[in-house]
């Protein structure tokens, strides 16, 4: 590479890096509607099945009393003004149909050729833009969430460390099959997930089936918020050899309020432990509340309730068959939706519900007189006693 060429690369690389760095900082809620409106349909509330079944919250206090039941009592597709949420298995089936049709139409194609065509069909610029928009919203909100914690929660250094992990997490959306060449089975999966690789890379990937079906912007925000939170969850933080007293306080509160099941075989961050998933839900709820608050004027009343429902609607599907649920690492839907989502003060405020009765809603500041560092806890016992 000659010197001029190198200079050009450095200049344009620098500009690209600056844009990438600034994007989450300059992002604000008013940048979102382009992506939001780009991915219709924006169903008017009057046409929504849920809208017909939910009177305004003020006229229906039972909704506030049992948010879990209100969210989960409907089966099948649910609508909000930005789109729908369908059961996970439906997403997989849709993606598989795409895949099957491609193979049938092109029996001479190799698996990578089919994958390329599948990626082109599913990861369209419109769908990619929608996820990217939600990703930036979530990243921005999460950084703000960390920044806004008082000094007694996180020191300036701790904030820097946490924010560095957030910024390091990349959203990887395929432009062709090669992007996921090390995970080619993802194109037909209805999943969004965080991974920390052996080389330290932190990334979030989105399965093709999820793009096909998760059309509600609020669901995308909650889902990405949950996965993003894993970048800073207590187990990841421990793996990074960081120790945050605020995390210990929060974990103790989770345990005290039964937001983490204390199986006898539980070994924190190792086996039968729900800590990282409970934490991820807890952070995602805060982000979902911000998203709902942003749109509370645009989507009042029932529309906002439908948006809130769709934020967590996919957590309760199949809940009528407990055999289907992973309750080893994830808390059961009732805990996730009622205790973590439904009792959150910001969620309740934006929905017009009164504050939840006791017990306290956990935050980084909550303490207990009998507080013991949860890092030593296994189930109901301490490691030293085993």
């Amino acid at each position, binding site marked *: 590479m000659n010197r001029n060429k190198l200079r050009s690369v450095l200049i344009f690389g620098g500009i690209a890096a600056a844009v990438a760095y600034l994007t989450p900082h300059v992002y604000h809620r008013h940048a979102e509607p382009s992506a939001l409106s780009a991915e219709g349909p924006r169903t008017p509330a009057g046409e929504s099945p849920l809208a017909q079944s939910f009177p305004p919250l003020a006229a229906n206090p039972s909704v506030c009393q049992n948010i879990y039941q209100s969210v989960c009592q409907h089966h099948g597709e649910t609508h909000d003004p930005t789109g729908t949420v369908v059961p996970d298995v439906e997403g997989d089936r849709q993606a598989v149909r795409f895949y099957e049709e491609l193979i049938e139409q092109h029996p001479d194609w190799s698996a990578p050729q089919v994958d390329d065509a599948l990626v082109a069909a599913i990861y369209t610029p419109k769908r990619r833009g929608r996820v990217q928009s939600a990703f930036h919203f979530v990243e921005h909100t999460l950084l703000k969430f960390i920044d806004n914690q008082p000094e007694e929660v996180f020191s300036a250094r701790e904030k820097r460390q946490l924010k560095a992990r957030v910024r390091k997490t990349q959203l990887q959306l395929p432009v062709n099959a090669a992007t996921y060449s090390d995970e080619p*089975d993802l194109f037909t999966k209805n999943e969004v997930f965080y991974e920390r690789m052996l080389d330290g890379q932190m990334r979030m990937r989105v399965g093709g089936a999820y793009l096909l079906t998760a059309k509600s912007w609020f669901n995308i925000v909650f889902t990405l918020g949950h996965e993003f939170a894993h970048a800073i969850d207590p187990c990841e933080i421990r793996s990074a050899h960081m120790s945050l007293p605020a995390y210990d306080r929060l974990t103790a509160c989770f345990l005290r309020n039964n937001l983490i099941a204390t199986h006898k075989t539980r070994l924190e961050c190792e086996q039968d432990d729900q800590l990282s998933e409970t934490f991820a839900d807890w952070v995602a709820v805060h982000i979902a509340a911000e998203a709902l608050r942003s749109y509370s004027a645009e989507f009042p009343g029932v529309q906002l309730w439908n948006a809130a429902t769709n934020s967590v609607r996919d957590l309760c599907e199949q809940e009528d068959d407990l055999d289907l649920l992973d309750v080893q690492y994830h808390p059961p839907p009732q805990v996730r939706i009622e205790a973590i989502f439904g009792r959150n003060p910001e969620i309740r405020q934006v929905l017009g519900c009164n504050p939840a009765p006791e017990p306290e809603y956990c935050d980084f500041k909550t303490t207990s007189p009998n507080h013991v560092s949860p890092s030593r806890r296994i189930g109901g016992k301490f490691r030293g006693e085993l």
Partner: protein
Amino acid sequence: MRKYLCRVLGNVLGSALVITGLMGCAGTPPRSSPEAAPVALEDSGLRGPEAADSSVDISYILGRDHYRLLAKAERASFSVASIMDKQVLEKNTVAGARYQDFLKKVNSFVSHPKRTVASNSPCHSPFSVTVRIGKETQTASGCRESDEGGLSRLVKDGEFLLYSKVK
């Protein structure tokens, strides 16, 4: 999780693609457990008469869902099924030659698992791969994050086999 997988297996037992009692409900490994030391099955048997009585069970957690890919050869009949949680997504009869290619890849996978799990690293996406040829059964388990794409490519091969069904 073991109880859960046994239940899933029990339900799958009702279908034509059941792999009766082969896996012994070994199931998905704990998230942070290291892989068990597998012993390679004889490669020479992969295309011989024993391969006609063989099966594959790939079980893995991705995100919040539990997936399985089951393949089976029995009396010159070759079939594959894909299951998400407890629901069968697809099941098909497949070509014998393609099945045997897949069986060979799976056998190679369980014989040479990656052993690069980072210490003190929570495993978000555990998997277990079991292959049976004749009466011999071997299992490898691990973590998707530290597997360098081996499991994912195996699943992809299995799905390509599944959807390239015999007409």
